[in-house]
Structures are given as structure tokens and as C-alpha cells.
């Protein structure tokens, strides 16, 4: 085997420029794929993290039918206290759940006495919300960033609204809401903080204390519109959501004995999930392109190599080399070529990724600034290496087979 590899290496080096060029092509393909995966991965992770850690949580539970009208912030489709209790029981019982937060969601009129605008509000329990979406407080751009998210009588105002209505921390504002019965209630609030926006639904919501929200809506029962759940690890999401959905569907049922709640993962609720799908699809296509590059370039080189060495092949066959040995010689050559190009590509990718972590690339997405922190997962790199080598082998298969099948006499006669 050692000799076969030595032969392969030496034969590759015999036509140095051709080998280098082909290897370079493979290197570039590998680099393109790995860098894209690293950058896209970083982007996805940042965005998903931002969405799940500072706004949506990993999954949410609503009363059945709520999400269909979610944009209108309906007040008539809330979870009743009994259902809320059962949901809490289910969440507490599941070891994968790290925290959860109950939210009263409403639309209101936001007035600074001179002008008014509409605002989407979440009534929250500050401590629970902090545990369920720990990155929310990082979005606070003005006001108390270390204390509780909200307090009674205070409101976290979205930055865009604060700017448009010209309010700052400490200002008095009025929140006026129409409740389910159609009656209007208003309260003065103090601006407790300004909240930076984030892409996606819910990204421009304001936050008040849940008791204030209930008072504003004249809610006499402890109803809840939404329960946001945080898991200990986002990787457990598919399993946990299936599990919880099962539990909730069986324990909380309505008069027609059908499930009365609905459970959605963040991906179900955020349009960003589609962007994630698109990115994954693009990765897939780039991978295919890499396969094509490796396949074509290696096959091309190996076909030429076999043709150039027809007489040599005849000689080796004549002096007793078994056909499978001949095949191995050429197969190794192709594999080595692919491996060399891929390894160079991997090394170059690591170098570029390291450079990108020293001089980070920052770009704007929507109204946010995203800094890329690309990383290369060992599994991904290994996968690409294996892919490159496999495809090189595949590409060399036919030329090597032809070499093995050659008739020595005809081969020896060849010019």
C-alpha cells in the first residue's frame, strides 16, 4: 500500500502544474463551501439566538386559534386560569424545560398627551420573563439595564416609537386599551426604559407588568394569552415540543373534546425560519457544486493520466501486476489528488475563519447590527474531507478500471 501511495504521489508530481491546478480548483471549492457554512452558521445562530433568547423563547403555548389572529392581538382567545395551571404543571414536570413566562398580550393607544400612536404590549412577570428570554434585557438601550425588566406603573417602550413620539426615560405617557367588552380604560405610566427593536413579529412590542395589563383590560380572572418557554438546550426542541404537545393535547381539552391549546416552536412563529431553510438549501447546492468540481476535475486528470501511461500500464501488466493492483495504483492517485486539494482547502478555511475572528465582519440586517463569529465544526470539516475524497475516488473509478482491463499486448503497442 505504501508503494502504491508513493507511486501515486510521484506520478502526481510528475506533471506538477497540472496537479497543482486541479488541486487548486478542489481547494477553492472546499474553501467556498466551508466559508459559506461557517458564515451562514454564524448568521443563523446569531439570529436564531437573538429571536429565541430575546423575544420568542424556544416554544410558545396559546389557546387554540390564537395564532391565526395573532396580528390582531385578540382579547377573546386567552387561556383560562385552569388551562394555565395545567400548562404550568406540564412544563414543571418536563426536565428539559428551563423556564417559562406567562404573557398578557394587548394592543393599546400610546399617548404622550400631544400625539398618540398604537403600541403592541406584553404584560409580563419581570422575573419569569427574564428567565425565559434572558437576552431581552440586552435590548434595553436606555433606562435601568440591570434591575427588573418592568415594574408596576412603568413601561418599556420600543425605540422606534419612543423616537417617533419623542419620549425618553422618566416621561409620563398614557396607555389606553379597549377591553373584550368594548370599554375603554387608560392609565398613566412612566417610561422605564427604551427597547431596541428586533426583526420578526413581536420585535416592536412594549412591555408592562402583567398586573398593570390585567388592570388596564379590566381582567378579573388571571387569564394569559401566551406562555413562552425556554429549554435547557435548543437541540432538544424537536423532541420536547412533540412531547409537550402530546401532554397538552391530552390534558387540556375543550367542550367538543378536542385539544384546546396549540404549541408552536419559534420556527413556526417567526418568518426567519424560512430564511434558515433558504440558507440550508443554499448550503446544499454549494455542496453539490463542490461535488461537481471535484468529480469533473479529478476524472479529467485521471483520464489523461491513464492515456499517457498506456504503455507503462502494459509493461506493469506484462511483468505480472494483477489487474486489481493496477486499479489501486490509479485509484490512489485520484484519491490523493482529492485529499491534497481538500486538505489545503480545509487549512485555508481555518486560516480565513481565524482571520475573521480577529477582524470581524459586521453588517446590518434589518435594523440590527450583526457581527459574524464564524466557526468550523469538526464534524462539518470532516464531512467535507470525506466527501471530497469519496468523490475523487468515484471520479477515478472509471479511468482506473480501464487501466486494469487493458490488454497488455495492445497497451505495449501503443505509442
Amino acid at each position, binding site marked *: 500500500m505504501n508503494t502504491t501511495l508513493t507511486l501515486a504521489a510521484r506520478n502526481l508530481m510528475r506533471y506538477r502544474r497540472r496537479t497543482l491546478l486541479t488541486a487548486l480548483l478542489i481547494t477553492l471549492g472546499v474553501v467556498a463551501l466551508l466559508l459559506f457554512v461557517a458564515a451562514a452558521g454564524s448568521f443563523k445562530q446569531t439570529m436564531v439566538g437573538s429571536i429565541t433568547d430575546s423575544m420568542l423563547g424556544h416554544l410558545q403555548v396559546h389557546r387554540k386559534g390564537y395564532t391565526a389572529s395573532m396580528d390582531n392581538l385578540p382579547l377573546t382567545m386567552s387561556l383560562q386560569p385552569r388551562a394555565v395551571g395545567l400548562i404550568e404543571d406540564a412544563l414543571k414536570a418536563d426536565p428539559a424545560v428551563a423556564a417559562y413566562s406567562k404573557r398578557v398580550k394587548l394592543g393599546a393607544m400610546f*399617548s404622550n*398627551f400631544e400625539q*398618540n400612536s398604537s403600541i403592541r404590549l406584553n404584560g409580563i412577570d419581570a422575573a419569569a420573563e427574564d428567565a425565559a428570554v434572558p437576552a431581552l434585557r440586552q435590548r434595553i438601550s436606555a433606562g435601568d439595564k440591570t434591575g427588573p425588566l418592568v415594574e408596576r406603573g412603568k413601561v418599556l417602550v420600543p425605540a422606534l416609537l419612543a423616537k417617533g413620539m419623542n419620549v425618553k426615560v422618566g416621561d409620563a405617557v398614557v396607555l389606553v386599551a379597549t377591553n373584550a367588552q*368594548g370599554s*375603554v380604560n387608560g392609565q*398613566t405610566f412612566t417610561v422605564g426604559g427604551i427597547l431596541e427593536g428586533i426583526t420578526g413579529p413581536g420585535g416592536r412590542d412594549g412591555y408592562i407588568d402583567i398586573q398593570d395589563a390585567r388592570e388596564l383590560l379590566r381582567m378579573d380572572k388571571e387569564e394569559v394569552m401566551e406562555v413562552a418557554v425556554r429549554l435547557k438546550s435548543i437541540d432538544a426542541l424537536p423532541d420536547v415540543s412533540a412531547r409537550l404537545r402530546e401532554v397538552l393535547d391530552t390534558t387540556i381539552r375543550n367542550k367538543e373534546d378536542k385539544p384546546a391549546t396549540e404549541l408552536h416552536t419559534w420556527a413556526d412563529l417567526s418568518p426567519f425560519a424560512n430564511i434558515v431553510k433558504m440558507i440550508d438549501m443554499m448550503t446544499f447546492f454549494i455542496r453539490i457544486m463542490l461535488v461537481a468540481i471535484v468529480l469533473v476535475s479529478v476524472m479529467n486528470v485521471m483520464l489523461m493520466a491513464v492515456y499517457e501511461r498506456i504503455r507503462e500500464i502494459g509493461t506493469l501488466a506484462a511483468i505480472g501486476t494483477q489487474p486489481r493492483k493496477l486499479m489501486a495504483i490509479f485509484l490512489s492517485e485520484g484519491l490523493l489528488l482529492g485529499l491534497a486539494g481538500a486538505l489545503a482547502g480545509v487549512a485555508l478555511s481555518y486560516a480565513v475563519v481565524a482571520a475573521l475572528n480577529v477582524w470581524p465582519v459586521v453588517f446590518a440586517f434589518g435594523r440590527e447590527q450583526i457581527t459574524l463569529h464564524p466557526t468550523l465544526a469538526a464534524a462539518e470539516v470532516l464531512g467535507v474531507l470525506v466527501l471530497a475524497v469519496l468523490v475523487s475516488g468515484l471520479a477515478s473509478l472509471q479511468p482506473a478500471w480501464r487501466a486494469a482491463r487493458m490488454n497488455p499486448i495492445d497497451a505495449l503497442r501503443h505509442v
Partner: protein
Amino acid sequence: MKFFKFVALSALCAPLLAFAVDGTAILKQLDRNLEPESYESYRKLINIEPNGNKKEFVLYSIKKGKDQTASLFLQPSSDKGRSTLRQGDNMWMYLPSVGKPMRITSLQSVTGGVFNNADIMRLDYAVEYEVESAEESDQHYTLHLKARTGEVAYDKLKMTVDKKLVLPIDIEAYASSGMLLKTLHFKDIKDFGGGIKRPATIETDSPLYKGYKSVMLYSGLKKRDFADEVFTQGFMPRLEELRK
């Protein structure tokens, strides 16, 4: 011979020309027939949803002069004490729980439903609109009104007026694009005393709120004078005093 025909025709037309429709005069009279310039009124507003649900409000409203009006919510109890004030183009809302009036706009609605603030706190039509053209038929006048300024809620109105009573039957309200925003139907002529005889019911519907209907029912309408201070932001919490 031709000349004679001309003279004869002109002579016949003359009486008609002398009686050409004066739209502005009709509008002014319509305004006064609906309400005295300064008055107080009691109204019930009913908002009807497509599924049959009803929401009702009872309002006490006052008006002074050309462009000052205020309303006080009497019912439901959850809204008691809420008041609105209009001075010219400016509107405010006062909530007892808030304690200080907030500015609102005429196209919003403090009650929800198809009526908006401009409908509830209405000024004289002649103050906000001018007559572009007027037509006459057997039973009706048809007036085409155009908003005097950009702040007026509706760009154009088409009024069908009862010729004999000089009271509106129908008003169609249009946006500047020509889109129909809502239609107001005036019904049930009633004598409110003090020489005021006018429709007690106004129904409205809108192609923009399919299935929704709102109804305004007048139960009291009386001429009354007020001091100027009544129509200020400071007086809004005290409007109840006027009912004594």
C-alpha cells in the same frame, strides 16, 4: 319668426331661472333644522357587530358657536366620566384614571364601531363644507359638498335632502380618491320641543367595515348657552356639573 320663438322661450324660462337652487342657503337652513347653534343633547350609540353582538354607550353632548363641542360618557359604568372635547380641528380625550386630557384625532373612534370622533362631535356642515353644486327634483334637493380644509374628516359629501322639511335623508361620505367611506341614514322625525323637529335616528354603515352597523339615537335635544370656559381642557373633568 325665429326671433319670436326665442323671446317666447326665454319668457317661459325666466321664472325658472329666478327660482335657481341656492345650495348654500339650503345647507345653512339644514344645519339649523338639525340643531340650534348652541345646544345640549342626550344620545345613545349602539355598535352592532356582524355576529349580532351589541355595544352601547350613552353620551351627553354640548355645543357652542361654530366649532366648540364636548361629550361626556354616561354609560356603560366602565366608561363613566370619560369625556371628549373638540375645539375647531383639535380633539382631546379625558379619562378619569389618567387625570389629564390626551390629544386624539377625528378619524379615530372613542367608541369603536363605524362612527368616528368626527361623526360624534359634529360641527355644522356649512362650517366644514362648501356647496359645489345643487340639484332639485320633485321631492329632494341633492347637494354636493366639498371639504373646506384638509383637516375635515371627509373630502366630499353627497346629501339627499327632503325638500319640504329641509332635513337630510341620506349622506354619502367620500374620500378624495372617490372611495365611499360611509353612508349615514336619517330616520324617525321626532319633535324634541322648543321648535326642534328632526330625525331621531342616524344609522351608518361602511364598505370598509362589512357587516358592522352603528346607530345613533337622540333622546333629548335642547337649546342652551354655555360659558366659554366650559370648552377647555381644564373643564373636561367637570362636564358632569352641566347636567344639574
